[in-house]
């Protein structure tokens, strides 16, 4: 099999697995009753999952932690969090974060 055919097959398998994950509880919950402990746990899914994606994007550079005021992505991220906190406005948050990053990259270099 060529490399492209192998990759296509891998993509289809990943697609099926991902769809399976997404469908799992939606399809089965009327037959499976979720234990109360798990039901309580679900309340924390959005905050935990989204934050776990955010922080490495802000703090990891070239495979290592970069905790410094010279880390433009970290500072721009903090500015975006402050804007999101004050305004609860998605558009404004993304715009402020992008502009902050561009300014900081221009200043720091």
């Amino acid at each position, binding site marked *: 099999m060529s490399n*492209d055919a*192998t*990759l296509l097959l891998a*993509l*289809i398998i*990943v*697609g099926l*697995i*991902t*769809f399976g*994950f*997404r*469908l*799992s*509880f*939606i*399809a089965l*919950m*009327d037959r499976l009753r*979720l234990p109360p*402990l*798990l039901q*309580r*746990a*679900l309340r*924390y*899914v*959005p*905050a*935990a*999952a*989204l*934050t*776990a*994606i*955010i*922080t*490495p*994007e802000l*703090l*990891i550079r070239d*495979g290592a*932690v970069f905790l410094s005021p010279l880390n433009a*992505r970290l500072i*721009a*991220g903090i500015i*975006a*969090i402050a804007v*999101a*906190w004050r305004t*609860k*406005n*998605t*558009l404004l*948050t*993304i715009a402020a*974060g*992008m502009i902050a*990053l561009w300014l900081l*990259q221009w200043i720091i270099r």
Partner: protein
Amino acid sequence: MRDEFMDGVKGVLPILLGVVPFGLIYGALAMANGLPASLALSMSSIVFAGSSQFVITQLAALATPAFVIILTAAVVNLRHMLYSASLAPYLQHLPARWKVAIAYLLTDEAYAVAITRFNRADKGGANGHWFALGAGVGLWITWQITTLAGITLGAFIPAAWSLDFALPLTFIALVTPALRDRAIVSAAVVAGVIAVLAFAMPLKLGLITAVVAGIIAGMLAETNT
């Protein structure tokens, strides 16, 4: 019903400011890594999960064995099972075709927008699935178009624009307003810290480890108040 669907589409409009650059960058990165355009484009509908598509693209460029690619992408996407469990109670009354459609469209962004809608007490749950469908369809169409645009125009996007930063910004915009109480903040802080500390774990296991740790932290904080 139609109103709820359109509300769902409108609900994702602000996030598109983050999704559009992310899609462009994905298409551009896939081309830069030597993926055939047809595979890069079809991945966006077959897999339809942005962060795992980035990971797959990078692994494929390194000639990683297919089973490692599959396993890593599966680990990265495992969190969608939690999204499924979280939305399931609101979708139980629906016929199978609805469940299949909403499951297929269940990305991070669609989940975040939909769960916010379902949590709104004033709206009630009755037609929330139309909202979820509208949000999912809006994101799906955007993702396909921007992937194609990234594939064709990506080479002209300067790296200095740092468009990939739109992804964390989108998630910041989605998560920050949801930090309503101490337990949820604990979940976010612990998940965020563990995600950085566990970043180097093989197969990208750090992400799901961080999510589980965050959930446990939230539950502990809740019982201690």
